[in-house]
């Protein structure tokens, strides 16, 4: 077993120093000559006292306890754990970007604004939406922004609708975002094929319904083939359609959600556009809208205007325009996760039109290849083929004594990150698998072999799968204890 790494606080030793600040080069005065005593801190913050090598070893060792895309295949459904190109990191670390202050006048930030403006144009091209905002900080934040736009749009029309309809296969963020915006949520059951049930939708979508939130392809990895009709039902009832673009990696260069009638779409730059997941963030969740919803986008909007230079020649300059009276306002301070925008932009420049088209082709191919390899060993609840991901069920295995959770843990011993498990909620013992386009045939073969081996083991000796993982830095943690006796900081 691996050696545990103590907490940095446990390595602290009085007087030890790491980073030393420059000496004060201005004449010093007593602190109390600037600030009254009552404004000052009584008790020192107990930060660790450690040397530079302590800090470096500590964080290096901690890093070695992680699986990551660079070390292991990560078939985490719905998360699109594709390879994160290194050139993106180099681009985002250029000093003209990292040291740019958000309140510098726009004339000093033209390179930055051009990049952001161009990125919006590329996202419009790829998605078929009419306008984008880059402000939302993550997918869920994009959903919230979308809900706010829907409400503002309807209220402008004098309508106060109260309900959002969400299929039961949706991500948990969908209902949570709708609720955060003050909407009631109505869940509708998917049909036997795992798709939106048209009849149920028709019945549910009343004149009190503001919008349908849909994911396409949905979380089962299936394309909602009736999307045109679905959008028509919503529009005929005076409502809108919000599309969760978490699964955009299935559609690049294949089809555009904007052409299918959706009114708002969020994209996850950290999924489809290769910005690193960073252990859970930062992501970025830009949203695209139709022409009718454009006035409601958050401010400022990045716009290009013609201007005359001193020499009387026309020149494009980029501005931050706050003059949009119908805007929902700001959803975060400043303009968004700029570092992620630079990475996504770099990725898209590298790929170009040809690369963008290949991404989804190979993502869909890889997923179907794996599905084909696993279909005789696991229960496949929906669909003979899939888009970029698919869901298998371990209910057969569960009866033999090993659950989806056990399979996930056994995979860790084989050196693979686990798929997403127990989601979507409508599949019993669900394992949701998304290989992405950046994995080779050999990796997929090895993963399939491990999955098949696990299925065989469960037939013979399920305890081999249950008592896992054995080779990871820690064994299975006691999550109940963690929640019942919360210990959330070192003391």
């Amino acid at each position, binding site marked *: 077993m691996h050696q545990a790494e103590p907490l940095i606080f446990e390595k602290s030793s009085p007087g030890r120093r*790491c980073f030393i600040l420059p000496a004060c080069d201005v004449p010093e005065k007593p602190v109390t000559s600037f600030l009254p005593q009552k404004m000052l801190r009584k008790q020192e913050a107990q930060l660790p006292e450690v040397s530079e090598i302590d800090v470096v070893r500590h964080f290096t060792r901690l890093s070695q306890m992680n699986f990551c895309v660079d070390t292991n295949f990560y078939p985490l459904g719905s998360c699109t754990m594709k390879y994160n190109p290194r050139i993106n990191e180099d681009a985002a670390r250029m000093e*003209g970007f990292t*040291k740019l202050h958000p309140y510098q006048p726009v004339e000093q930030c033209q390179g930055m604004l051009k990049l952001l403006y161009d990125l919006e144009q590329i996202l419009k091209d790829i998605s078929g939406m009419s306008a984008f905002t880059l402000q939302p900080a993550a997918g869920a934040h994009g959903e919230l922004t979308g809900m706010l736009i829907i409400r503002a749009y309807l209220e402008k029309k004098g309508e106060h609708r109260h309900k959002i309809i969400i299929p039961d296969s949706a991500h948990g963020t969908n209902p949570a975002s709708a609720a955060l915006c003050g909407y009631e949520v109505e869940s509708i059951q998917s049909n036997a094929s795992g798709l939106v049930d048209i009849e149920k939708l028709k019945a549910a979508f009343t004149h009190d319904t503001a919008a349908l939130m849909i994911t396409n392809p949905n979380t089962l990895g299936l394309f909602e*083939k009736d999307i045109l009709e679905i959008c028509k039902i919503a529009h005929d009832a005076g409502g809108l359609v919000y599309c969760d673009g978490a699964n955009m990696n299935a559609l690049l*260069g294949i089809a555009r959600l904007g052409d299918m009638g959706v009114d708002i779409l969020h994209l996850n730059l950290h999924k489809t556009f290769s910005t690193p997941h960073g252990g859970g963030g930062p992501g970025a969740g830009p949203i695209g809208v139709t022409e009718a919803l454009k006035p409601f986008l958050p401010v400022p909007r990045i716009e290009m205007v013609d201007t005359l230079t001193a020499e009387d020649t026309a020149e494009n300059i980029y501005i931050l325009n706050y003059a949009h009276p119908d805007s929902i306002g700001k959803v975060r301070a*400043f303009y968004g996760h700029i570092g992620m925008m630079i990475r996504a932009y770099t990725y898209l420049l590298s790929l170009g039109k040809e690369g963008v088209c*290949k991404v989804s082709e190979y993502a869909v191919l890889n997923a*179907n290849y794996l599905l084909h390899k696993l279909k005789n060993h696991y229960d496949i609840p929906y669909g003979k083929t899939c888009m970029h991901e698919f869901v298998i069920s371990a209910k057969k295995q569960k009866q033999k004594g090993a659950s989806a959770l056990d399979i996930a843990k056994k995979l860790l011993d084989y050196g693979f990150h686990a798929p997403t498990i127990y989601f979507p909620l409508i599949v019993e013992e669900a394992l949701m698998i998304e290989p992405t386009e950046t994995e080779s045939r050999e990796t997929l073969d090895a993963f399939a072999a491990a999955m098949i081996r696990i299925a065989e083991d469960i037939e013979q000796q399920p305890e081999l799968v249950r008592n896992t993982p054995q080779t990871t830095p820690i064994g299975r943690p006691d999550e109940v204890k963690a929640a019942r006796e*919360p210990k959330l900081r070192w003391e």
Partner: protein
Amino acid sequence: MTHFTCGMKSMPADKLFFLLIVLLFIVSILTLLTSKLFTGYRFHLNRSVMDYIPNTECDKRKMLKEMGMSSFEALLENIPPTFRKFSSVLPSGLSEPEVLRDLRSLSEKNTSAGTCISFLGAGAYEHYIPSLVDHLASRSEFFTCYTPYQPEVSQGTLQVIYEFQTLMCELTGMDVANSSMYDGSTALAEAALLSTRLKEKNKIVCSRAIHPEYRHVLRTYLKGLHTEIVEIDTPEGITDVNQLEKVIGDTTAAVLVQNPNFYGCIEDMETISDVAHRHDALFLACVNPISLGILKPPGEYNADIAVGEAQVLGNYLNYGGPYLGFFAVKKELLRKMPGRIAGETIDSLGKRCFVLTLQAREQHIRREKATSNICTNQALLALRACIYLCALGKKGIAELSRLNLQKSHYAYDKLCTLDILEPTFQQPFFHEFGMKAKGNLRIQKINERLLKKGIIGGLKLSAFYPDLANSMLLCVTETKTKESIDRLVAELTQM
């Protein structure tokens, strides 16, 4: 050339016309092939691009064959053909050196604090970032992993979050902290939401000296939730406590104050905290972590929730993002808190380990009943903050705080001696202060002239506060040497 010309001359006119038509035809076909009219996944140029896809055409054929598929198209039969035709104006892919050349050119079009001396602050601050922060945070085990859903192979990320939570508790003096929020503004908005839910009251009282963009975000978040936001004036540069006393009432869920406030002034947090609690409202403090090396932390003035922007802890300006908000509360509010939280437990062998915990609050379990819709944190930035604070250590954070205080006051004292400027407010401040231009000199002009000398001046306060005409907000952190401050003063002296 001569020969060619002769040849052309010898060609009869009708033949020439025919040749032209043929040429036109060929050119238009070529244009069509490479233009936006002819795209969709079917069309690939032969040229290789950086697509990061290991499988080749040959792999593809083998895989399709194994699947018993005749073509890739068969996998897309559920997509109606009408969706397959669309136009695209995306350019062709570029090689690495070409991409970097483009990006460098964009980067160099910006005038940044990398080449200028900047006195801008206002919610985004320039602090020195020790070398080890970039080096350690660039380990791909940290930046290419996902949310620690599988704790057995995510102890690195989980322990970092746990240490980050501890560090934020130490700095703020609060009981518990979460793993981080999108940024300071959304942390504040979520804190206000928590208050209205907990207290079941619908009024938020908010100081006008809270960052204007934070108040903007607050309004956006609360719109439609039947919550009233009342702003308290700041005539002397700090929140007017008398006005607060008049406005606050039994329906007030929370009082929100920033310290140091947007103008850099230090608020009387203890008094305001008492007022809030007397009316059974929560007291929410929005604070700058760097100031907490010296200033009284929220825990010492009985704040219920402490939030703020932790960009200052080892993260770059990045034109405003990504940043990270922190969120710390009293024990009693723990289960009402939004966001991810890491906790300590033991593994199957009894060994200490860390997991994401109290997930019953979160959207993937509770869906529409969750405490928030947030499903990420800013883990990589929290890692940077964690490394930064460990590198500073107990002595370092206090020294850093004092250094900011000394330098800003040195600059303030010098600027006060100039005929053209006077302080906007007369209040104790930390590392930021307002300066008003006297006479006919406009802030805009001052900043334009400073930029010519390689100095980025302060924020024009009237952009957010029309009543504060002709004032600028200047920030002086430890990154400004005496020499650079003296240069600012010298340039202003000449105006």
